[in-house]
């Protein structure tokens, strides 16, 4: 299957996404913000649908939408109402807006499916360049904030007392999540970002590794999931998104069983 250009591109794109999904997902699960990432991908969907309607590239709209949503969630924070309510509200309003845009975008129903469930086999080489740039940006930004972010996640009061700017850190992290989400959505679609970002990270955290090792394991699991998903999709009649989602669920169940057996 590797003799085909589009398959090679797909494997590379999956690699780039996994590289980011591992560590970003690890922090999301650690901070209990996995729902936030789910919402960001939906806001990204609205952005992408709007971009298509305006004749702009979907990735641009996806990225801008998700980053905007991240900043909004970070700013609103827990000041207004319970955070899950804020996030749920943002999520549903965004989906409604996306549906509106798609309604007027009658000529391309296929791009709607691609947005929702991903179109990894349709990624061109110029898109691959963009994904690479996003990966590097995302990883560099995360490497910059990782240390205070870990402190703030594990010991918020002490971090605050040490002068860590919690609000700034929260917004920076949500922006990183937004960029990672936009990238991941190219592979899995906005509806299934969860599977590549959250499932491997949750499995890795379950197994109780130290932070840096845990992020590494999450990355490996995400990579395994994405590549195996591509291979399985090649040999079966089911789409990649299905396989990635199925593998994501399996990885998490396997990790839970592993911990159960080991007795922790």
């Amino acid at each position: 299957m590797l003799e085909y250009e589009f398959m090679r591109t797909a494997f590379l794109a999956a690699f780039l996404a996994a590289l980011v999904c591992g560590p970003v997902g690890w922090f999301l699960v650690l901070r209990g913000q996995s729902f936030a990432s789910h919402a960001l991908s939906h806001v990204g969907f609205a952005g992408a649908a709007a971009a298509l309607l305006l004749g702009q590239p979907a990735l641009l709209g996806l990225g801008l939408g998700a980053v905007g949503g991240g900043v909004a969630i970070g700013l609103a924070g827990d000041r207004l109402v319970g955070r899950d309510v804020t996030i749920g509200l943002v999520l549903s309003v965004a989906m409604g807006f996306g549906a509106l845009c798609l309604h007027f975008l009658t000529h391309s129903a296929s791009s709607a499916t691609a947005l929702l469930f991903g179109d990894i086999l349709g990624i061109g080489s110029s898109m691959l360049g963009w994904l690479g740039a996003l990966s590097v940006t995302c990883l560099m930004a995360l490497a910059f904030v990782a240390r205070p972010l870990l402190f703030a996640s594990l010991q918020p009061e002490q971090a605050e007392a040490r002068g860590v700017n919690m609000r700034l850190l929260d917004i920076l992290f949500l922006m990183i999540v937004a960029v990672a989400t936009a990238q991941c959505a190219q592979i899995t679609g906005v509806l299934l970002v969860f599977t590549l970002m959250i499932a491997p990270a949750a499995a890795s955290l379950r197994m109780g590794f130290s932070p840096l090792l845990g992020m590494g394991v999450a990355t490996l699991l995400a990579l395994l999931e994405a590549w195996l998903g591509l291979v399985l999709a090649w040999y079966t009649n089911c789409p990649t998104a299905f396989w990635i989602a199925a593998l994501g669920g399996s990885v998490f169940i396997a990790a839970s069983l592993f911990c159960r057996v080991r007795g922790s």
Partner: protein
Amino acid sequence: MPSSAVQVAGVTLLRQKKAVLDNISFTVPAGSFVAVLGGNGAGKTTLFRTLLGLEKPSAGQIWIEGQPVQKGRMPIGYMPQVRAMVAAQISGWSTVAAAQQGWKWGLPFYGKQARADIDAALAAVDAQALAQRPVGSLSGGERQRLMLAQALLDNPHILLLDEPLVSLDPARMRETAERIHTLARDRNMTVLMSTHDINPLMGLMDHVLYMAHGKAVLGRVEDVMTTQTLSALYGAPVEVIKAGNRLFVVAEGGGASLQSCMCMGHGA
């Protein structure tokens, strides 16, 4: 080193127009061990947060070792009141390590010196073995020990410990109080430790800072823990009862109000 570790002058802090701290003044001499007493809502946590620069008083001034309070730049080790640990799967070691220069940008790598510092802090509270386990599997008291180790990183001159004895059984309370006392003496640290129950600290503390209704008095145990002083502080008659070497504060009339006003001592 200045002779006063903490100096508070006329500090008032309002929360929704209510004075949580109401024109409080006191001076904690360097190296002293202070029990911060008071019932729920007396303002103990708020006072600590104010000393750390996390809350801005609407009036008054605070000096830490002679310097005005500056958030995040003070030689203070802080152990907040217990809360559920979010990351149950992370090991105790990694949890404590996160506080090691955790405010610096970059990756959470720990060099040889940093690792040695973390291990030394854990050893000081006898928690090396605990640190190998995920925090989710530890008891409340065991987690408190990890948090105490965390507060010792960077060799602070002052420790602010917010209810470190909560959720411990009476024997463990005394053991923990003695551990903190020994650490403070060996390292020449000033300790402000809030607690509901004065009795585990009997014979250990140098001063009592008693808080009620946003007011506070600081003094020696025998001066503060008197019927007269506390009645004046509460603005209502209370009685200090001595039973052996244990102290109890009881609202006059006892009965139903005993619970709400009794800030220390547990019947048994």
